[in-house]
């Protein structure tokens, strides 16, 4: 009988021990185990936000997001690594010897096979129903027009982050805000009814409506490519702007790349030279000198300068592009004939500080604020650091550097009656479908009086009609513009090489300017701007007239001139 009691005692002690253990587990260690429980059951998923599209000014798509699939493998579940590798390699254009190590990776349960695969192709892979091969829904950036304004648009990396251009600069607006889904799931990943479940929906990114016009952009690129080839040049840049609004209608750089295949492209082509590269402007800069002189009444329009063949200023000898005998020239003649010696004489009348002030007023030395990431401010030495020879070179565009867009803005200011309007690339945004929010009007400031602008316009029209810009003429339209030929300074030492940048910047119609076009050709085989770049200007201008429906307007009179004009 005592043994039965022993039996009872043993059971009571056992159950008591278990109870003790349970109280430790469920009272003192309860928090710890609850945390472990939530940790293994609650999963947080990021809900990707749809990236906004990039549209042209008529809301034609330039960059859109497509559904795509990331294809991955769980090596632990792959049944036949070699067979799987062969099939995948065949469809996805990959190499078996690259795939095989991924499919047989020890201890790994996730290996990317291919990222951002097109939906059609992913469906074909899915149809093979290969064990251990899985698919993740992702989105892929697609540029339906291919290499259209690629340096402006930029591109997006596999992680959905913009890497270049507006895709990079407007990453925050385009990306939106990803959502989050916190969910308690069973062991197979299905939601537990009544479990933790919280969803923060994603906020889709905004669509960017650009100021670019895709047709004009296309034509500008086509013309640019042809001109670069015809001149055996290294590259080129074209900007088309509306002077009244600052809208950039086209912005092209050559050579370009296809943003759909940016990985295989030369990264040097990614730069948007229109805003990121600074050139010595050369003769196109004479417009600023002339405008400042007129505005400040430093010279009179009838005043005739005696322009020698060469001139020594503070120990520097300057020449004109063509040797000539001593000539008598008005300011108009100097601009039209692009006389370096003449414009230096004009600048001397203006004086260094007034001249420097106008460079700054026209926007040199500061980024335009067009809204493009990495915009260059150009190189404009502060006036107190100018050398003795600065006033002998800067008036015709040597010794400073500006971006093509800065230079185009100078001409847009003249075209716009003396008011500088900040150039812009973003016309507006579309937040949710159909809620278009136009961008605010670009800031503007008066640089010279309307009268000064008119006079400078006349000079520029004169330059096209009878001067260096004859190749830019368009029958029926009066074009105002200026050639430029700048020797490129050496990259690695001081002094100038024998390479040139040929440019032409102008607008039309002269009396009622609707469009400013700046073209630059980098290292053409033919040296002079008038020969290399004016025909390109002309071609782009013809497209712009057609595309924008620009009507011919009355002609502006030519400024007083001393030279013989037919």
């Amino acid at each position: 009988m005592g043994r039965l009691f022993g039996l009872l005692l043993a059971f009571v002690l056992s159950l008591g021990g278990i109870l003790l253990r349970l109280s430790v587990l469920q009272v003192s260690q309860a928090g710890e185990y609850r945390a472990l429980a939530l940790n293994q059951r609650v999963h947080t998923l990021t809900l990707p936000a749809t990236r906004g599209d990039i549209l042209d000014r008529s809301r034609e798509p330039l960059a859109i997001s497509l559904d795509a699939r990331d294809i991955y493998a769980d090596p632990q579940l792959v049944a036949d690594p070699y067979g799987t590798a062969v099939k995948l390699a065949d469809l996805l254009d990959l190499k078996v010897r690259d795939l095989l190590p991924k499919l047989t990776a020890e201890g790994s349960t996730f290996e990317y096979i291919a990222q951002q695969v097109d939906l059609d192709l992913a469906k074909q892979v899915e149809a093979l129903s290969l064990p251990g091969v899985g698919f993740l829904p992702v989105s892929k950036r697609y540029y339906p027009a291919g290499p259209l304004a690629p340096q402006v648009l930029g591109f997006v990396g596999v992680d959905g982050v913009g890497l270049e251009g507006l895709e990079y600069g407007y990453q925050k607006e385009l990306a939106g805000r990803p959502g989050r889904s916190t969910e308690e799931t069973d062991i197979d990943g299905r939601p537990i009814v009544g479990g933790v479940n919280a969803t923060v929906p994603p906020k889709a990114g905004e669509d960017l409506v650009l100021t670019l016009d895709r047709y004009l952009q296309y034509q500008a690129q086509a013309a640019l490519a042809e001109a670069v080839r015809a001149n055996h040049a290294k590259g080129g840049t074209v900007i088309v702007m509306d002077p009244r609004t600052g809208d950039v209608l086209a912005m092209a750089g050559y050579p370009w790349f296809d943003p759909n295949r940016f990985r295989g492209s030369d990264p040097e082509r990614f730069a948007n030279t229109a805003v990121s590269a600074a050139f010595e402007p050369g003769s196109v800069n004479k417009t600023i000198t002339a405008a400042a002189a007129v505005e400040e009444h430093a010279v009179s329009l009838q005043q005739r300068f005696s322009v020698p063949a060469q001139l020594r200023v503070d120990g520097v000898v300057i020449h004109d592009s063509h040797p000539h005998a001593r000539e008598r020239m008005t300011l108009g003649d100097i601009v039209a004939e692009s006389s370096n010696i003449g414009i230096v004489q004009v600048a001397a009348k203006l004086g260094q500080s007034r001249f420097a002030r106008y460079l700054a007023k026209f926007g040199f030395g500061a980024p335009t604020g067009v809204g493009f990431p990495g915009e260059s401010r150009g190189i404009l030495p502060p006036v107190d650091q100018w050398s003795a020879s600065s006033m002998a070179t800067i008036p015709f565009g040597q010794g400073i550097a500006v971006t093509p867009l800065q230079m185009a803005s100078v001409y847009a200011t003249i075209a716009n009656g003396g008011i500088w309007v900040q150039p812009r690339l973003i016309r507006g945004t579309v937040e949710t479908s159909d809620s278009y929010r136009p961008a605010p009007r670009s800031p503007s400031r008066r640089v010279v009086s309307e009268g000064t602008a008119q006079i400078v316009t006349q000079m520029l029209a004169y330059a096209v009609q009878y001067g260096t810009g004859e190749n830019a003429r368009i029958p029926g339209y009066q074009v105002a513009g200026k050639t430029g030929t700048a020797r490129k300074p050496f990259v690695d030492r001081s002094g100038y090489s024998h390479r040139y940048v040929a440019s032409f910047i102008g607008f039309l119609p002269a009396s009622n300017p609707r469009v400013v076009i700046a073209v630059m050709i980098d290292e053409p085989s033919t040296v002079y701007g008038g020969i290399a770049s004016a025909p390109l200007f002309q071609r782009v201008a013809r497209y712009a007239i057609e595309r924008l429906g620009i009507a011919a307007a009355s002609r502006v009179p030519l400024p007083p001139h001393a030279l013989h004009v037919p």
Partner: protein
Amino acid sequence: MASRAVEVAGPRLRLVRPDDRVVSPALAVRLSRRNTALLLVPAGALVAVGLIMVLSASSWTAYTRYGSSFLFFRRQAVYAVVGAGAMFVTSRMRYTAWRRLALPFLVVAVLLLIMVLQPSAGTVAGGSARWLTFGPVNVQPSEFAKLALITFVAALLARKRNHLQDLVHLALPLLPVVSVVCGLVILQPDLGTALILSMSVFLLLYVAGVRMRYLVSAAAFGSILSMALILSEPYRRARLLAFLHPRHDPGNTGWHLFQSLIALGSGGWFGVGLGASRQDWGYVPNAHTDFIFSILGEEVGLVGEIVILTLFGLLIFAGIRIAARAPDAFGRLLAAGIVGWLGIQTVVNLGAVTGLMPITGVPLPFLSYGGSSLVVSMASVGILANISRCSAPGPRRKATRRRAG
């Protein structure tokens, strides 16, 4: 007079009284009824809780793997009805009949154990062949073998009660029988059940009064043997290691225990609510069978577990009291064997679930899903009830019964 004094003064929990045999017939009947109630009420409550918990713990598995949330619950409910029928029969059947039935019952059980080893007959689950399929019913012979072996050993020890100190008398019939039954179970392989079987026999030997010296040697021999069996089999070795270092590899061998502890731990004092377990959404393996207590702990917390442990404790207490008051040696040994087996299985299961012992894969009596286990357990409770009833003065009671019938 003496009995009265004892009844008043003695604590009610007393198992054995020196003057037990002189209690008045009326008191004996009362004691018998009280013991029967103390047995049946916890047993019934445990079966009812078991049904609820099987429904709660199995619905995810049933739904995701078989398409119907109620699959296991419905089956278990049917088994509970069958078990109630079996219990009714065994409680009405005079327990002394088991003395004669012991050998045939054991022979049938052994034959079934042999049959289950045939690959064609057995249903394999979790790597071992444990079930025989008869039409829609799966029968687990090892559950019947438990009762059969206990009955046989109880009968044997009752017969040899005067030769208990004679090793030859004892070992000659006992050792081969126990070895054959345990050996067949190990071959399935089901070491857990084999351990329950041998521990129950050991317990019977203890209760029967076998000399402690023999018992200690037997225990030492059994421990060495089971250790050898564990170490010879890689998965058992892994389980043992997982028990010793539960966090060492929670993703693999330690997974069962780790998930069980998470379930219990997140239950806290009052649990997450009946039916609200999250760990039974596939995290705790065998949530409705071996690990049903983990889900119970998660849902009803420490407070609920205390209730369940109390029910088990009352049941064991009642069973031991019945053994103590049994009319003869066979009754005492049979009752002690049954209650010992149920108690050992409870402790082994709870020990595994709480991480106090290695996982051996034995079900929790009355609560775990499993028809054979439930039916045999309930039938055993019926036998205990009958022994309890027979402890009241027999002839008169039987006479009134017969007359009434």
